[in-house]
């Protein structure tokens, strides 16, 4: 403790924090990428393969359905990202600023806290031919008295995957946009454009969207990278024969024939390539689009009276979004307690606790593993994030012109590189250094993905903090530590707890890191839930999905309740500024 204090007093800990964080990111990424690239070209000493060759690539392209898997990857990944971006923009154009929008803003936290896999499971149960949607239709028409033979989930075209991904990413993009709208002076711009006789749509399309896009570019890239390369959601909601490339790669990595490790490595590298090229194309298309916009803008506005469809469309979109989330949670909830639930009945005939009981026997270990991973990784991420942001304050004190945005790119790195492109290599590295199947290695791998989200959630409110409070506090009590804990930390308690909850739910949702780094020795409720989706009873799947959701929800609830209770008599502390 004394050393800690001395380090903190000299500011070394603050100065070191960006380096500690960067190495937590960079070591797994760099080691992991190399450890994947080498086997992709035939070098994998672990299985006695020490000759560079293109054989893994030839095997990859010769694999039945590989080309179709690549096409599906592109269609679902790009489709989902585009859909998510368009609906996010539609909701902003149609509803910002308005009372409805404030309502949506308030519902974002629970939507964000829902693990991807749990949402995909719920959505699946909902839209399957025997789900609530079809049952609801069946009450109106005789034609549906038996479940139809439609494939509405895990369809070969990947439509259900596109929807599952897009619906899960819209809240994230909305959340990231909300953080930057004030800096764009969106309300003022809209009012000004209105006074000049332009419509809201005109102001958004030509004035605000281009600037907003620049600000949410990195989150959007993260969405693209995620959608192109996700494994767990694609296993639950995606097409099966063949699946998307990411799922195929994962199958290769777990093929009993060790030769397939190298095919998997080649596939993972191909996925990385697809990802990099896609992001590069997006980046390069910005300049031409910008030129086009300026040209269009210079032509002047057309004051045509047009129907303002965007507001009703945005209302429909946001209601469906929230409705689908609620419906899928309820659908899971009902299934988990159902004992007999015949087709077209809207409600189960009997309820029972049997499924909960059956899961209870096998939940204990994964439950505690998930819990400790999430608590510890969120805590480590929070400490590092606060140290880095305090370091920023110190640097700004010395150099007021310091641009904090530069650090953002490095924070985004783990979100822009596909997990599957480096986790295999990282696993090989861990095995070789005998650090595999070790709880701390697993924790490390979770931190790689938890830190970025904690940093992104906390940095906004933290940077907005009026530093004069701290100056006043230090001059009053002569003690920087007391002034931090009693003033800054407490004023920022709400966003700090919110960031912790975000990190917690990100860790709970991790699938691939646990699969690869846990090496079968550790399982979490998420790996269990995903494993169960192939073939189990849907009641058991429902219970598992609920367990997955309960933990983050409780933490988010605490994160909102604790500050509200602590500051219940402090009016100025009541507005939830996350």
């Amino acid at each position, binding site marked *: 403790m004394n050393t800690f204090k001395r380090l903190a007093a000299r500011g070394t800990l603050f100065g070191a924090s960006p380096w500690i964080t960067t190495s937590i990111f960079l070591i797994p990424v760099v080691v992991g990428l190399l450890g994947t690239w080498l086997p992709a070209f035939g070098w994998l000493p672990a299985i006695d393969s020490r000759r560079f060759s293109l054989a893994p690539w030839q095997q990859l392209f010769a694999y039945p359905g590989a080309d179709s898997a690549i096409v599906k990857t592109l269609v679902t990944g790009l489709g989902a990202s585009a859909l998510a971006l368009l609906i996010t923009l539609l909701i902003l154009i149609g509803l910002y600023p308005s009372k409805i929008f404030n309502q949506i803003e308030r519902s974002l936290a629970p939507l964000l806290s829902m693990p991807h896999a749990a949402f995909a499971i719920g959505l699946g149960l909902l839209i399957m031919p025997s789900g609530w949607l079809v049952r609801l239709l069946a009450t109106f028409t005789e034609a549906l008295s038996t479940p139809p033979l439609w494939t509405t989930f895990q369809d070969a075209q990947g439509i259900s995957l596109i929807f599952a991904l897009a619906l899960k990413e819209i809240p994230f993009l909305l959340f990231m946009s909300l953080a930057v709208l004030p800096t764009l002076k969106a309300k003022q711009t809209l009012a000004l454009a209105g006074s000049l006789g332009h419509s809201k749509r005109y102001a958004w399309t030509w004035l605000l969207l281009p600037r907003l896009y620049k600000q949410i570019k990195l989150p959007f890239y993260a969405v693209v990278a995620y959608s192109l390369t996700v494994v767990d959601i694609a296993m639950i909601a995606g097409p099966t024969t063949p699946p998307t490339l990411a799922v195929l790669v994962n199958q290769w990595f777990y093929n009993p024939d060790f030769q397939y490790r190298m095919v998997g490595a080649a596939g993972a590298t191909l996925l990385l390539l697809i990802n990099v090229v896609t992001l590069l194309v997006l980046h390069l298309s910005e300049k031409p689009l910008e030129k086009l916009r300026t040209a269009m803008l210079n032509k002047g506005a057309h004051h045509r009276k047009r129907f303002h469809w965007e507001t009703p469309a945005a209302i429909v979109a946001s209601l469906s979004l929230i409705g689908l989330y609620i419906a899928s949670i309820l659908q899971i909830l009902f299934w988990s307690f159902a004992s007999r639930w015949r087709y077209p009945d809207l409600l189960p005939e009997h309820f029972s606790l049997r499924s909960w009981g059956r899961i209870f026997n096998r939940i204990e270990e994964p439950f505690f593993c998930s819990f400790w991973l999430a608590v510890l990784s969120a805590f480590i991420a929070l400490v590092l994030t606060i140290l880095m942001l305090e370091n920023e304050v110190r640097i700004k004190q010395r150099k007021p012109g310091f641009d904090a945005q530069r650090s953002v790119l490095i924070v985004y790195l783990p979100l822009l590189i596909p997990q599957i492109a480096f986790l295999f290599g990282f696993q090989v590295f861990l095995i070789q250094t005998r650090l595999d199947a070790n709880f701390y290695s697993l924790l490390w791998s979770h931190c790689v993905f938890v830190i970025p989200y904690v940093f992104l959630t906390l940095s906004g409110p933290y940077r907005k903090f*009026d530093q004069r409070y701290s100056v006043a506090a230090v001059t*009053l009590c002569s003690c920087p530590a007391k002034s931090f804990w009693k003033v800054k930390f407490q004023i920022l308690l709400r966003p700090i707890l919110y960031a912790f909850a975000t990190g917690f739910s990100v860790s709970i949702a991790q699938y691939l890191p646990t699969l690869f780094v846990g090496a079968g020795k550790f399982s979490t409720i998420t790996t269990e839930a995903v494993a169960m989706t192939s073939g189990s009873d849907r009641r058991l799947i429902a219970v598992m999905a609920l367990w997955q959701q309960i933990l983050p929800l409780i933490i988010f609830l605490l994160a909102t309740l604790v500050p509200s209770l602590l500051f219940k008599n*402090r009016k100025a502390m009541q507005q939830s500024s996350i």
Partner: protein
Amino acid sequence: MCFELTDFQITLNNEALFEPFSLHIKAGQIGAITGPSGSGKSTILSDILGVLPAIFSRSGNIRLNEKDITGLPTGQRHVGIFFQDDLLFPHLNVFENLVFGIPAKLSKKEKAQKISSALSHAGLQGFEKRDIATLSGGQRARISLLRTLLSEPKLILLDEPFSKLDEELRDQFRSWVFKQIQLQDIPAVLVTHDARDIPESAVKIELEVSYA
């Protein structure tokens, strides 16, 4: 107690913000620094506090009670500051705000007594448990100054202290502030762009912008 600035000058990129000046004030005295906006008034206060951004550099001395304080960190300078915004901590009530700066060596009872008598001198008796957000601007300003004075600084800095108050409140509050400073018997440095804020007895410094 006394406070002095000697041959004091601040430069930015080798350009002086103002001509060098010296200021010497005794306990209970007010040194008033005026000058056009952008002349570096608030920068001087940052430097006295020890939070001068590194892009600036200073020449000359800052001495408080004959002791050079330029090497000390903010917390050890015993300099209090009063901003135009009250900067009362929103998560603490009036009592908790006031007790924050009271030297720890006092007992709980002594602290409570100090606060209660300070509040009643300010016409705010019984306000201990009030939430900051429910107070008027004038009440907040008074509590903010009390908070600074209760921390027993050896020098108090006033950064445009009255500019956010409305006319009516302003005169009344101004004379109250100067009375409090005299009672406390410490030197004060006032920075303002408004000549009406400066008491007759003050040692006046008008910054000359250097166009060198």
